[in-house]
């Protein structure tokens, strides 16, 4: 093999080595760029999904928004009308002498509803005049049960009632009721003591009529 050939082959080998190094570098760069492109694509996809969701929400909100708002406005208008109506009733009731504690009960029992126009105190005069006879407890502060009246009420009536303590009926055929806890005890000497009897005659009469009198020696 001639030297020229060897030199030529060595030169080729050097070129090939150089080309290999260049290709290796190029491949490395291409891989890095491919990875970067892949990451970028994933981020873009995620952003796209978020934006799609946001777009859908906004689109839905845009589509349904006006009806909800109208409903909400109507509800608030109703609440304001009810409040004004109740305030008007309270003003008229206060002027008519209704007890503050019976105010809510009487309003609930009235069954009156707000109208189109704002309520005026004179709108309630007829009802309050009638109530003065039909529901006198509301004007004295007395609870309906204490005045011996039942509260008819409307279905929505939720007045707070102060109920009187219930009294068990006398036991029929089972002996006299036990009054021992409320017995009125007197000594025989008290009964013939004028000064004592002048103060307690009515108590003795009441207790004996109710079977609560106990005469001790």
């Amino acid at each position: 093999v001639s030297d020229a050939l060897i030199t030529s082959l060595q030169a080729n080998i050097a070129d090939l080595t150089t080309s290999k190094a260049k290709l290796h570098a190029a491949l490395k760069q291409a891989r890095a760029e491919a990875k970067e492109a892949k990451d970028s694509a994933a981020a873009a996809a995620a952003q796209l999904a978020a934006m799609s969701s946001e777009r859908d929400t906004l689109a839905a909100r845009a589509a349904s928004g006006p009806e909800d708002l109208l409903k909400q406005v109507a509800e608030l208008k109703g609440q304001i009308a009810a409040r004004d109506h109740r305030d008007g009733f309270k003003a008229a009731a206060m002027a008519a002498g209704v007890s503050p504690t019976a105010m809510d009960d009487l309003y609930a029992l009235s069954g009156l509803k707000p109208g189109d126009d704002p309520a005026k105190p004179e709108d309630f005069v007829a009802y309050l005049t009638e109530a003065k006879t039909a529901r006198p407890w509301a004007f004295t502060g007395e609870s309906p049960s204490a005045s011996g009246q039942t509260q008819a009420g409307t279905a929505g009536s939720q007045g707070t009632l102060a109920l009187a303590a219930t009294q068990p009926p006398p036991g029929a055929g089972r002996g006299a009721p036990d009054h021992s806890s409320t017995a009125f005890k007197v000594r025989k000497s008290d009964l013939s003591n004028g000064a004592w009897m002048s103060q307690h005659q009515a108590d003795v009469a009441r207790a004996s009529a109710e079977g609560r009198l106990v005469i001790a020696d």
Partner: protein
Amino acid sequence: MANDIDGLFATVLSAATSAASEITQYKNAFIDAIYWDYQAELQAAQGAAIDVILPTVDEGDVVDSQGGAYTPTDTKHSKATITLDRDFTTSFLIRSFDQVRTRIELQTKFFKPRLEALLRKMNRGVAELVTATNFSTYSVISGSGADVFARADLGGAWKNLAGRGVPVESEMDMSFITSPVAYGNMLSDSNFADESVVGVNASQAAFQQAKLMNLLGARPYYDQHLARFNSGKEPGILMHRGAIAGVTVNPLSGADYKAIVFPKPGLPVLVEVGYSIKDRGWLVGMTAQWGCRVVRPEFGSLVETA
């Protein structure tokens, strides 16, 4: 099961106290119109003389000391000695327990009528004191109307009392008591019953309830027991409570079962129960021991119709 004495007494007590608390049938005006002194601590024998203190307003009790010491006097409220000369009793016999099985029966059939009768008799005793002799400080005012008084008649009596310093402004103590005839005529007399004269309320009360409203600061009543001062003329008296005083005490009793009830404030009535062998039944007795007399004749002025 037979009742025992405790049960009987409890029923009697219940009926008596209830009856005493519900005396309403007769007004007994004089009992309400006089001064009563109930001496609760006293148990006096029949005929005892009891001193009754009469509240007296006397300017002589006030001294202008000019910066000096007090000038104390003994408590010298004027007092009147009243004899405990009345011992009114009423009683009934329970032969069978069936008669007193219920309190209501005993109360309505026995106690209430007897207590009413007792009060009526006491009222008569007080009314008998109202005579021209006992009230001679002023001459009897003779009215001009036949069986009816005129306003001027009452005005004359009022002037008598006010002129002598009687506290005529005290409405609870002043009474005008007359006979049912004169009272009834006043109810339909224009001077006492017409709306244009006495106002609508007084006119309504006169016509609808036979009640005369206060006259010259006194409560007007009628009383059947008031006797005429002169024949054919209806009587009347304008009086302050202090004109007549009565005294009451707790009656003496040795009974085991007894109680004191008050058909009127200050008027004690002893109710006692015991078995009487002689009478063969349970004896229920009621006693009121009292006395009264005119103590201040200047506190009453008599009037009569023509």
